């Protein structure tokens, strides 16, 4: 290897860095470090002129390593790696010093901030001198996809992929397709039948030559890596089980939600008052076309209570997004089923944020729904009515807009239960190695810019397993996930990260300590050689085995001991 010839570039980031850090002082300090050929400041290193400056210096000075002191490597490492590659230098000969997110934006004292920027830049310079060229490899992308969950989301993603020619396996736990939408009568705000919508999807899915539906089945294990997963699926058959393993390149997780258990809220009398029911219990009656009280008669007064289990510190702090419009839908459906029935809608705030929703809200008022607003922490109280009343129950509401306490009659009370993450969602996370947020929803790779991918390459999320959402948003997310997968299938190849661990067999004692340690089972033991080795495609480069190897026989590419030691020396020099 040639002697390191390092170029150091210090970004001003407009004034983001330069207003606190003395960039010229950082340049001056870096210029005297061993191996540094050129050191320059620039106002925006990530801009085209910034990148061209690096390329020109590589050409002119024969640079073989580059340090960019700028923003977080999580921001622009890929940008500068590409710039190096374009200029004919191995992209792994780049190191970034984070002097924005972890320096100029968090420190206000210029002398201290400049000192820290110098130290971080010095660490990067010493580190980059120890870098080694790494090659990314490319492997074939398997065009098959595994879809976990046969609801509206899973089916919609599957259909797009299958239409494009890919093979899709839909694994559904239930004995039928449709998920939670199959439990719904009409949909808001256009009062279309959920059943009609689902029938179209299910028929196409079942008849599609590229889709294999596995009902009463569960995914037991997903192994491998993007483009090359092996999924083990267990299906119930004739009282027993049968296992099969399928090869897939991508996985869409569309496992949906479960409803909030209304029995957890004590003050609405659910479970005690027979005619206090949940929204899904009402959906069932509506689908069966028989809207009655427990006693069997038609209710004269129906009350709908919003936000049960939602938007409260006691249960779920989030809004479930669909309940407000569903509640308005009930007003229409109840009125249509029982003309002359009095419907009151008891809400905290009316969230009518979507397309056509405000109009739907207005139309709901036009069908003479009585809207009563209550304060978040001042819930309505429901009690059994007396023999002299012409109703089953009485609801006392401290009504916000009038400022009065209002008592309204009810024969049937509908609790709008929110969505929550499924009980076993943590198991799904472990299965496909993705994460959950504090509420249990699966986390997307980027909340705004990459809302369908996850932190594990090749695993996508769609629908209500990621957060509460309505049918249009669910379908959009599922089809977006399908589109992302199709892009990859069209490309045909997957680039595999060049950073992974490798065992130096000369030093390996065959103790096998690393074998059990690896969470991805990426380390194999060769019985003949009595040595362990890493299956690089399975390795995710965490480095756990590297730190644990008693012989120091495992090397973490791009995070070697020498590289980290150099960095330590750099920050402390």
């Amino acid at each position, binding site marked *: 290897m040639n002697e390191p010839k390092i170029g150091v570039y210090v970004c001003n980031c407009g004034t983001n860095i330069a207003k606190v850090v003395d960039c010229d002082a950082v340049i001056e300090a870096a210029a005297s470090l061993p191996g540094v050929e050129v050191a320059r400041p620039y106002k925006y290193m990530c801009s085209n002129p910034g990148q061209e400056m690096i390329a020109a210096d590589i050409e002119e000075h024969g640079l073989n390593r580059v340090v960019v002191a700028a923003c*977080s*490597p*999580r921001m622009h490492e890929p940008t500068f790696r590409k710039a190096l590659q374009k200029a004919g230098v191995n992209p792994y000969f780049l190191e970034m010093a*984070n002097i*924005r*997110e*972890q*320096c100029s*934006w*968090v*420190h*206000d*004292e210029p002398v*201290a*901030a400049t*000192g*820290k920027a110098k*130290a*971080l830049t010095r*660490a990067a310079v010493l580190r980059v001198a120890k870098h080694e060229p790494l090659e990314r490899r490319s492997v074939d992308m398997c065009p098959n996809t595994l879809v976990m969950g046969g609801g509206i989301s899973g089916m919609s993603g599957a259909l797009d992929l299958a239409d494009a020619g890919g093979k899709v396996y839909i694994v559904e736990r239930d004995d039928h397709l449709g998920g939670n939408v199959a439990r719904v009568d009409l949909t808001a705000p256009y009062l279309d039948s959920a059943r009609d919508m689902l029938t179209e999807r299910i028929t196409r899915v079942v008849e599609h030559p590229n889709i294999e539906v596995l009902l009463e089945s569960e995914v037991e294990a997903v192994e491998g890596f993007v483009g090359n997963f092996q999924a083990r699926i267990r299906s119930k058959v004739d009282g027993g089980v049968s296992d099969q393993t399928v090869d897939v390149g991508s996985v869409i997780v569309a496992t949906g939600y479960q409803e909030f258990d209304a029995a957890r809220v004590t003050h609405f009398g659910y479970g005690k008052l027979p005619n206090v029911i949940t929204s899904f219990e009402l959906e069932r009656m509506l689908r069966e076309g028989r809207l009655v009280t427990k006693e069997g008669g038609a209710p004269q007064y129906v009350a709908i209570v919003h936000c049960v289990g939602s938007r409260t510190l006691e249960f779920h702090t989030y809004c479930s997004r669909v309940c407000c419009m569903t509640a308005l839908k009930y007003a229409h459906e109840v009125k249509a089923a029982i003309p002359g029935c009095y419907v009151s809608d008891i809400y905290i705030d009316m969230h009518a944020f979507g397309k056509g929703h405000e109009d739907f809200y207005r139309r709901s008022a036009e069908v003479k729904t009585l809207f009563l607003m209550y304060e978040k922490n001042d819930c309505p109280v429901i009690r059994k009515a007396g023999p002299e009343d012409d109703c089953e129950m009485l609801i006392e509401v401290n009504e916000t807009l009038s400022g009065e306490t209002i008592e309204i009659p009810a024969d049937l009370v509908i609790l709008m239960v929110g969505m929550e993450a499924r009980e076993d969602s943590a198991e799904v996370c*472990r299965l496909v*190695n993705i*994460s959950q947020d504090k509420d249990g929803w699966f986390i997307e790779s980027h909340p705004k810019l990459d809302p369908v991918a996850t*932190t594990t390459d090749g695993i996508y999320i769609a629908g209500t397993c990621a957060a509460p959402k309505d049918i249009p948003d669910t379908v959009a997310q599922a089809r977006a996930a399908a589109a992302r997968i199709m892009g990859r299938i069209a490309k045909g190849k997957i680039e595999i990260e060049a*950073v992974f661990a490798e065992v130096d067999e000369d030093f390996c004692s065959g103790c096998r300590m690393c074998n059990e*340690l690896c*969470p991805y089972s990426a380390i194999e033991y060769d019985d003949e050689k009595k040595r362990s080795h890493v299956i690089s495609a399975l390795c*995710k*480069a*965490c*480095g*756990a085995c*590297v*730190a*644990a190897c008693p012989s120091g026989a495992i090397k*973490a590419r791009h*995070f070697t*001991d020498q590289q*980290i*030691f150099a*960095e*330590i*020396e750099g*920050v*402390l020099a």
Partner: protein
Amino acid sequence: MTFEPKIVGFLCNWCSYTGADLAGTSRIHYAPNVSVIRVMCSARIDPTFVLKALKDGADGVLICGCHPGDCHYTEGNYKIMRRFPLLKKLLADYGIENDRVRLEWVSASEGQRFADVVNDMTERVRALGPSPVKTDLATDMAER
């Protein structure tokens, strides 16, 4: 003049480093004494990194990883969690005070927590004064 400790931070890429970046994008100000070295997972942190940092003049070492149960690599943080008490025992034998080397969990959404940890750590190490053993350790290691 007050003593300004030099502290080396080893942060996992997925949670803690991202959390530290978030402190930046949220403009949460904190003490400038910790310089961060990024590793992919806290399980990559070899005890020798800590020893090396102390030998090279660090007054303190801060290790941050994902909260238990939240590791990007499923269970890497449990590995550092088990390794850490052994390291602390060794450090105690060297006469290195408890507060100088610390393991904390910081998630990607905890920018404020990262800032609080850095401030608290800086205060504690400042109170301890310069690392008394950095030269001792250097001689010791050289002799071995």
